[in-house]
C-alpha cells in the first residue's frame, strides 16, 4: 500500500536526542545466570531499542541507546536498572 521506507531501529534512534554518560545505568547483576537464562533472553526480546545483545557468551549492553522505558527490568530480575545521572540519557524533543 504505502511506499514508506521502513527504518531500522538504529535509523529511528538517530532521530532521538541523547546526552550520553560515561557510565552505564544498566548492568547484569549475576552474569552467570545469563549462561542458563531462564527467560529465553527476555531482555534482548522486549527492549524496543536493541540495547541488549548476546555476544561471546555474555550479554552486552549498549546503554547509550536506552530510552529508559524499564521493559527489561520488568522482564528479568537479573537486569540492574537505575536512572541515569541527572541530565543524562534520553531527552525527548516531542514526547
Amino acid at each position: 500500500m504505502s511506499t514508506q521506507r521502513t527504518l531500522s531501529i538504529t535509523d529511528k534512534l538517530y532521530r532521538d536526542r541523547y546526552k550520553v554518560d560515561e557510565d552505564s545505568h544498566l548492568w547484569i547483576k549475576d552474569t552467570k545466570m545469563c549462561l542458563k537464562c531462564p527467560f529465553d533472553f527476555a531482555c534482548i526480546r522486549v527492549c524496543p531499542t536493541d540495547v541488549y545483545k548476546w555476544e561471546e557468551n555474555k550479554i552486552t549492553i549498549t546503554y547509550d541507546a536506552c530510552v529508559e522505558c524499564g521493559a527489561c527490568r520488568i522482564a528479568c530480575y537479573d537486569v540492574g536498572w537505575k536512572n541515569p545521572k541527572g541530565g543524562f540519557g534520553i531527552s525527548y524533543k516531542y514526547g
Partner: protein
Amino acid sequence: MTEKFDSVVVGAGPAGIAAAYTMAKAGLSVLVLEKGEKPGTKNMFGGVIFRHHTEKLAPEFWTTAPIERHVVEYQYWFLSKQSHVLLSHRNQKFNGQYNAFTVHRAKFDPWFAKRAEDAGAVIINRTTADNVLKENGKIVGVTTERGDVLADVVIAADGVNSMLAKQAGLRPETPEAATVLAVKEVIALPKQKIEDRFNLGPDEGVAALLVGFGPGMHAGFMYTNRDTLSVGIGVNMKDLDESKRRPNDVLEQFKAHPSIAPLIKDGELKEYSAHLIPEGGYDYVSNVSTDGMLVAGDAAMLVNAINWEGTNLAMTSGILAGETVIRAKKNGGFSSRNLSTYRQQLENSFVLKDLKKYRYIPKFFEANPHFFVEYPDMLNELFYMWHVVDDELKADRIKRMKGYLLKRRSRLSLLKDAYHMWRLFS
C-alpha cells in the same frame, strides 16, 4: 544542599507539578527535583491532557499553554488483516466545551512546571534522586549526586519505574501482566494533510484506539497533533514476552496495516520513544504513604486503562498529596498517621473509585484475549458478508452469518462473554 524544605517533590510530571503547585500556593517551601534536562524530556504518552482536571491547576490553560489540538472525535478501530470496522464519535459539543487536548510532553510539561515555579516552588532540573534518606526508620529526604535534600515530606512522583517507592518498601516489583509497553513514533506531516486525512478543522483533533492486529492484548493508538501524528502500540508485557515478538516489529506491523498506512504515508519520523504504562488497575496500586513520604501518579500505578485516563489521575493524586502535606503541617505533625489520610482521600475521589469499579477488568481481558483478537476479526468478517452483493438470497446469507458466528464462538461462550461484560461494567 542541606537546606530543609517542607516538601521535596521528585519528578516534574503532571503528578509532581500538581503537588508542588498545591503546596507552594499554600505557602509551603517546596523543592522539585527533575532528572531530565527540563520537565517533560523523559516523558512520553499516547494520550491527552484533560480540560476538567488540568483547569483545577491552570484555568483556561489552552489560551497560553503549548497545546496541539483539542479532541473532537474519538475513534475505535477493530482491525482484521486487511480490513477494519470503525466506530467513531464526533461531537460539536467538544468544540464548545473542550474535553481533552493532544500535547507534546516535552513542550507542555515545562509550561505546566512554570505554574508551580510562579507559585513559589523551586525546580531543579538535571538532578536524579537516587535514594530515600532515612533517619530512625523515617524518611527525611532524598539523596542526589549533588548532595542530600532534607524535607518533612517526600512526594515520589518519579513515574512508572519509581525507584523511590521501591526503596521505601511501598511497591513490590511490578509483574509483567500489570504493565503495558508503549512504543510510539512522532511522525511529521503538513498541517493541511493531517486535517484532510482526518477530516478536521484547524484546531480540531482525533484520538483513536485500535485493536485486532496482534496475537494477544495489543492495542494501537493515533493522536493528531498540529503538524505531527503520534502513532504507537501498547502491548501487555506478559503478552509481549510470551509471544516472543519484538516491540518495534509490532509497531511496524501496525503501521503497515492497509487501513493505517495511508494515514501516515509520506510522514517523516521525528522521534521514536518507549514507555511503560501501569495498567494493572486497583489491585496493583502501590502503598501510597509511609512515615515521611507519599506516592503519586504513575509511581503509585494510577492509570485507568479502560477510559484511556492517566494524566488526570496523576494531577488529582498530586493535588491530594499536596493537600495532605498542607493539612499535616497545620495539624502539627507529619506522622505516618497524619500522612495516611492521603490513601483515604484517593479512595474518596474518582481516582481509586474508578479503578475499584474496574477492579476485575484487567485480569478478565488477560484471561480472555479473544476480545482483542477473535472478536475484531469476526466483526470484520460479518460486516464483509453483509456487504458483498451477489446472487445469494438474504435468508441464506443471514443463516450463513449466524453459522459463521457460532462456528467461531459457541452460543454458550457468546452468552458468557456478554454476561461478563455486563457484570464487569455494571
